[in-house]
């Protein structure tokens, strides 16, 4: 035990000696959280719209004014001919072109009036959302204009809408748990994988392994300081999320801490596994940085809904630890639930930790012989 503690101390010295790396390790996660918490948003606003309006009557002008006054749209140009539409898109001047039919207001009474919303469909999400908004604004205005004369009764269904968990629809509520999952995993895995690969590359690992310490303890002693650093990272991330990004922890804090600690453990074991495979630092870095970052970003449900993916990828997503952590973090932080809601996530993550650590330790022993 004494030896073990001495080894851990040695590892701590390694980290503290390199001030720059330490600063990077501690500041990086916070910077990333702030950046993404503020910058990421799938909301659609400030869409640049241009108008082609051959009739230019009071009705079309009112529609244009109504679009302009909404927060979603800014009018970027008035076109003189439909031939200019293509050019508008190619120069990226507008993302939406509203085309009115001729003699608009007189044809609205007779029937046959038409408004085309030509959207730049290259971004499907934005395209659908902006045509939806524009349709809602325009049809709302038209309904006012062409309302049934008073006296005639029609049915009316009042729709009362409640947005639960996130009534203000803040993007941060969705992204912050995701960013936490990604940041913790990447930092932890990268830290451990590199530090062991470095000892291997410089040959010092051999020296460690011939010492009277058991290989298991040597490896663990390397993981302990990083576990400690990761816990500090976790705390700063949570503090910044709550106090700066105003993302609440509505549920049980002990539950959040428990699942986070297990998740850190899983991430550290992934680092161990990578370093047991990698023969050089560069390879360890590329494996942990790239091969891990991609799935963590794409398949964890952080950015893209898993239920939209093809079935095969949905299966792959199930083995991504970040996926389980993000679900658990959302349940606790945003939905305000407790331990009982994350039993499955806890079980899956614990199992992953167990498997990963066993496999990576087995591989280390093999290399010894």
């Amino acid at each position, binding site marked *: 035990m004494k030896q073990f503690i001495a080894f851990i101390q040695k590892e701590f010295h390694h980290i503290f000696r*390199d001030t*720059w790396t330490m600063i*990077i390790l501690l500041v990086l996660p916070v910077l*990333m959280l702030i*950046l*993404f918490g*503020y*910058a*990421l948003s*799938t*909301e*659609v*606003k*400030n869409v640049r719209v241009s108008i082609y309006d051959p009739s230019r009557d009071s009705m079309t002008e009112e529609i244009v004014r109504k679009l302009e006054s909404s927060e979603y749209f800014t009018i970027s140009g008035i076109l003189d001919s439909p031939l200019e539409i293509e050019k508008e*898109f*190619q120069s*990226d001047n507008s993302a939406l072109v509203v085309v009115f039919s001729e003699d608009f207001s007189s044809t609205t009474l007779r029937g046959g009036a*038409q*408004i*085309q919303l030509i*959207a*730049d*469909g*290259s971004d*499907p999400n934005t395209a659908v*959302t902006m045509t939806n908004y524009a*349709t809602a604004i*325009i*049809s709302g205005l*038209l309904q006012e204009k062409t309302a049934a004369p008073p006296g005639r009764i*029609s*049915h009316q*269904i009042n*729709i009362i*809408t409640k*947005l*639960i*968990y*996130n009534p203000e629809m*803040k*993007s941060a*509520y969705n992204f912050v748990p995701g960013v936490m999952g990604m940041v913790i995993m*990447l930092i932890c895995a*990268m830290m451990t994988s*590199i530090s062991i690969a*470095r000892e291997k590359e410089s040959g010092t690992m051999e020296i460690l392994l011939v010492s009277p310490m058991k290989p298991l303890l040597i490896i663990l002693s390397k993981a302990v300081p990083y576990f400690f650093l990761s816990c500090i990272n976790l705390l700063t991330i949570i503090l910044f999320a709550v106090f700066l990004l105003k993302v609440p922890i509505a549920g049980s804090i002990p539950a959040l801490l428990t699942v986070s600690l297990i998740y850190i453990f899983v991430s550290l074991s992934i680092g161990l596994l990578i370093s047991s495979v990698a023969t050089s*630092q*560069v390879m360890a870095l*590329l494996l942990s*940085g790239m091969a891990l*970052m991609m799935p963590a970003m*794409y398949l964890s449900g952080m950015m*893209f*809904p898993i*239920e939209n*993916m093809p079935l095969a990828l949905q299966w792959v997503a199930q083995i991504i630890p970040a996926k389980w952590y993000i*679900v658990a973090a*959302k349940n606790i932080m*945003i939905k305000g639930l407790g331990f009982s*809601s994350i039993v499955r996530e806890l079980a899956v993550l614990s199992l992953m930790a167990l498997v990963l650590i066993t496999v990576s330790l087995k591989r280390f022993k093999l290399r010894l012989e």
Partner: protein
Amino acid sequence: MLKYLIEKEFKQMKRNSFLPRMIIGFPLMVLLFLPLAANFEVKNINLEIIDHDHSLLSGKLIQKITASGYFILSDLTESYDDAMKSIELDRSDALLIIPSGFETRLLKENVADLNISANAVNGTKGALGTSYLSAIIRDFNTELSQASKGPDLFLPSPVEIIPRYRFNPYLRYPVFMVPALMVMLLTMICGFLPALNIVGEKEKGTLEQINVTPVGRFILILSKLIPYWIIGFVVLTLCFGIARVFYSLTPEGSLATIYLFASIFILGISGFGLVISNYGKTLQQAMFMMFFFIITFIFLSGLYTPVSSMEQWAQYFSLFVPLRYMIEVLRQVYLKGSHFSDLLVQLAALSGFALFFNAWAILSYRKSE
């Protein structure tokens, strides 16, 4: 002199068993799998309906909703608590509550209420789900009003609002993602590898041997730059092939334009990598720095979420992100067929980055110390 140095770089790369495989394998992996996962579309909304009314009308409404294609009826229940439970467990995304007496009130008093509750942790999904549902209900209401008035009563014919989606009429997500992912690949390969290059040689001690030769720092940086430039072209060409074969995507605009912009972009991002490599003391430091910048670049570039939806300060920030311009170029040329003259701003920005970073890389390289 330069020729031999470049030859040396390629030899070093070839001797590393991992790098050449990564240069081919990574683009394949990214372009084959990620576009399938990257889908923001809001579909398959699981709707739970609590029908307290059990009337002919409520039945008709439910039928209309399920026939719309947007919603999957996850459950029909009587109890609000059960329904909330199913939202907590993510089995349902939204609830529709039909109060008892819905039919009688609507037919007798012409007014009735419906309640919608939506899980808004993911704000976009919550908002779009409720807006789809409201639209269906409004439709239902109009049909009902018209039916009750009899066919002879003529309502003013509504203005036809037609959405059209240019460049991507079927709103396929890969069309949007693939060109941008090409830029991400170029960044990862032509940015990360140079960032590890000089530090790597520093750590190994091989840089010392070059430093004692009369090779100037300009030539040295150039010899580091050119191999990545060539690799970039290989990767890009490979990407075009994959896009062609697997997504039937061919550029609308000219390939020459893309290659021209790519050549400037690669110089810029490799230069940036070399700057980091010059300042890094260890591989670990360089990797973490590069990792931080690249993730930031990726998120602020508009690859996932539109730049125009970001906070104002993030939009200013994104002006300094080279990826942003290159992604604009690729999406514009690939999807919309934009011409060189539409992209002068991007040309100026990318050239600026390339000059700035490479000048910095040359100046910050120290042969002594």
